């Protein structure tokens, strides 16, 4: 089966290259924040209306929050953190050097995985899921 042509565009390149790195980072982080809130809603088994009710907001406002275009104020983020029980704002300084020791247990072999990707962080939970790639062999591993 033939694949689609990979297309390079002068106007896309020109416009994209004119975006300042700072602006691009802000837009990206707003979307990642929205994605994290959406993940928190789903992890709690909620829908948008549940978050709206919990925070006494209109559903349309939640839709805007999740669109990745909203500029949150800190109080709103704190409220979302509280009702969803997730972390959105980091207040602690990150140490420059951090030694993390954990015990890895190979639990099963998986057929395909994105090498070196991971879900979860060491701060979130004592149990982390890692995909470790070596010679095209991927294993699901966990720590405890």
């Amino acid at each position, binding site marked *: *089966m*033939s*694949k*689609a*042509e*990979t*297309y*390079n*565009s002068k*106007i*896309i*390149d020109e*416009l*994209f290259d*004119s*975006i300042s790195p700072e*602006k*691009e980072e802000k*837009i*990206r982080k707003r*979307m*990642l924040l*929205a*994605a994290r809130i*959406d993940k928190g809603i789903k992890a709690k088994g909620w829908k948008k209306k549940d978050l709206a009710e919990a925070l006494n907001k209109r559903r349309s406002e939640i*839709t*805007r929050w*999740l*669109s*990745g*275009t909203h500029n949150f104020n800190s109080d709103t983020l704190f409220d979302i953190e509280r009702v969803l029980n997730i972390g959105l704002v980091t207040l602690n300084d990150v140490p420059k050097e951090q030694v993390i020791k954990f015990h890895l247990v190979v639990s099963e072999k998986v057929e395909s995985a*994105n090498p070196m990707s991971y879900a979860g962080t060491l701060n979130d939970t004592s149990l982390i899921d890692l995909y470790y790639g070596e010679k095209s062999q991927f294993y699901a591993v966990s720590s405890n």
Partner: protein
Amino acid sequence: MRYRLVKINKLSGYEASLYSIYLEDEQRTLFERFLEENKNSFKSELKNILARLNTIGHYTGASEQFFKLREGKPGDGVCALFDIPKSNLRLYCIRYGSLVVILGGGGFKPKSIRALQEDPKLEEENFLMRQISRDIRKRMDEKEISFSDDDMDFEGDLNFNDEDDE
């Protein structure tokens, strides 16, 4: 109308593939036409749109939350990139799950209108995306187009000529 599906290199990444429609007669894609039509009046908005599309391709995938859904017929995937409050532009897309998006055209969205039928330009761009969605669906039904094994790409005969399908 003769056109083909092309994958936009700059915006596509590990999280989603972003396509557009290359118009053979105009020698440019629908998305490029949208950018050229609005670069003088709404350059800042276009840059925001590009940064969001780049994030979708490389960081988040095309989750529903980033789009205004149901802008076409039920099930045809026609949607719009979420409108920023007080923004001026509407960009139509066709979304295939969170992994593939086809970028179409759009234009200025006057604040006074409530339905796209009230604006001839937006109506034309929207109906074009509906037609393209139907064309692709027909090719898929006839097994001439399919998704790749990782669901990130279209494969098959991606060249369309309206006369072929009549």
